[in-house]
């Protein structure tokens, strides 16, 4: 088994599922080897069986831990649905304020369009000494 630390229990459980898949593959490989017309190779079979047993042990270990640490499913105690609604209201307020600001920007742009500011006077020439 890989010696990685799994962050969430979901990832651990997903790993368990992948391990089960590998266990099945190993079993299939062992069976194929046994069905080998030239006779099975002993070390092949023994390594595979050792891996099989190891994986089963790991699966059992992980599942036992997960079952111990799984908390019971409590109904949703602290519901945040009403603060979610106030968030939605705030979003709509923000939308409105943004639209007002955009309108102000447009008004400023229009103003500058209709009242172009006079061009700046050229800088005075440096005094000749």
């Amino acid at each position, binding site marked *: 088994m890989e010696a990685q630390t799994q962050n969430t229990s*979901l990832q651990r459980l*997903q790993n368990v*599922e*992948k391990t*089960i*898949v*590998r266990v*099945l*593959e190993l*079993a*299939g*490989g*062992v*069976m*194929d080897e*046994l*069905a080998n*017309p030239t006779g099975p190779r002993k070390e092949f079979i023994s390594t595979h069986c050792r891996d099989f047993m190891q994986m089963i042990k790991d699966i059992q270990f992980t599942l036992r831990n997960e079952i111990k640490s799984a908390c019971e499913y409590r109904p*949703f105690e602290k*519901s945040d*649905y*009403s603060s*979610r*609604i*106030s968030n*939605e*209201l705030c979003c*709509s*307020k923000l*939308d*409105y304020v943004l*639209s007002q600001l*955009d*309108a102000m920007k447009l008004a400023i742009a229009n103003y500058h369009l209709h009242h172009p500011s006079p061009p700046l006077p050229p800088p005075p020439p440096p005094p000749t000494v």
Partner: protein
Amino acid sequence: MVENLQLAHQELSVIFDLINTVEANDSVTVASMTNPKQLPKEILSDLAVSTATKLQCYRHLGKYFKQSAKALEQQVTREAKFYGALIRLQQNWKVKRQRVAATASSSEGFTIDLFDSSLHSSAPVYRPSSLSSICIDHNSAGMLAINLPPNSCHSLHFGFLGVHSNDITQKSSRNRTYNSVELPSKETEKESLNENDCVQETHSLLREVHRSIFDEQVFDMVNREAFNSSLGVNVTGIRENYLQLGMGPGNSVFVSLVSSKDDERVEEERPQNLKYAVFPLDSLDGVKIAEENSESFNKKSVLPNFIIYEIYLKQIFHEYVFVRAKDRPTSTAARVSGQPTKDGPGLLGHFCMSLAHRIFSNKVLTKLENVVCGVSYLHLISHPTWHSRISSWTIFMKVPRSILPASSQTQASDIPKMKNITKTEFRTKIVVNDDSIKVEAEGAPNVVGLLKGSSENVYSTNKYDCDLASLPVIVLQQVASQVVRWLHEEALKVGIKANRDFLCLSFKLEQGEIVSLVAHVDPEDTEGCISWWLVMEEGYVGERKLHMDVANGASECKKFLGYLTLDVLYSTLIDLVTLCGGSGTF
């Protein structure tokens, strides 16, 4: 092989004889039978056959295991996506599971519950919406999907009758929430939808439904309140998912629940349609509608943007519900913008009064703006009051600083109450409370002081209640009297004794003539609202006039000075002062 066949042939002939004998009804008994001893070759071949069979079985098993492994892997990855998405949704929404019997669709009974149980501790006024519980399914790609009937989401709309809401900005903010409703039609693009997109779309869809449930609740409560309370709320029309209220003269608003799909198309038509569908509850309704037609253009500028009030309506109902659910700590009620408990007129009444107040204060603001535009030295300041039914503005005037230093005010020091610093700013405060206007002006002359004839300067603040029509005149009069008071103080500083009337400043010349600077206010004047006249009278010593006595025109002459700025007024004053310089002391 041949020997085996011969042996078999012999055995067969024995059997035939036996059968013939039995048919001939002779009794026959079998003595004994022994298995022929197996030849070693046969043993070996039997063993070979069974070994081959076992090998075949193993191969079969091996293939079976490998196939199962592949199928399980696929199922595991598919379900990993499903459960991963489900866990991400669970961080935000309530997920429930019912252990139903395994159906063919294998949906495993997950539902998302959008029902807010914290609201239900109070009265059973809230009926659970049919949308509250949403089933989670697998879509065709095996990923998490939510199927909603297409027009199930509604949103609350508020608006004014007769005003078209074809502002682009308002539409764009609503369009943003509609994209998620298109989810069921995206089945064809399932390959390109990765897990993130799927979860995000589901999430926004759930948001949409949650908000729609809230909107339905608000509409429900509005309906309830509209028929229960009677304070200023008049129901003038009702249809399915639509309620029309009349408030005050010529204003009609509607509150409706509109399905999200046909929002934009219907909105344009709705205001016109419903003008004819209104059931008149009193005879003036026809008149109201006619008025709206002609004034619709004016209304657009006076009426506040309907989105503001839509949001406000939702907000006050949400806060009410929120406060009600957490009933115990009443401090939250105080936090709700310091307003008293709304159980009296009800929320809808409060809302309608706020709306009426806003419309009224918009009119007040227009008048104030006209006044301030008409006088060049006035500034309009608005004050946020954080109260939805009170608005407040200040008209601010800054006068030019005196050219004389403060130490030369010898005359002022013997009046105990007067400060050494002269007033350089004058404020007139206008407060609108629901629909009553109060004007407070500082620096206007005290009536008592006037009657006493003393030159006491009392820092009084005059308060007036007025109505909308007379507001500009009153404000202008206050401002003009503040200017006159300033000029009076400046004259006193220079050492000239001047008499101050409400809008008039008089100086006595050597020969007993009286020269007065008089202010005239006219809010309709387009060139300026405050104009100044110079009036010269002879022979009236010691009498003070409150108006210009036009009938006695023979002994007066008036000169129109124009719409003077404060600097020009000040220099005019100095000129007048030098005119009567003989009677003053420096």
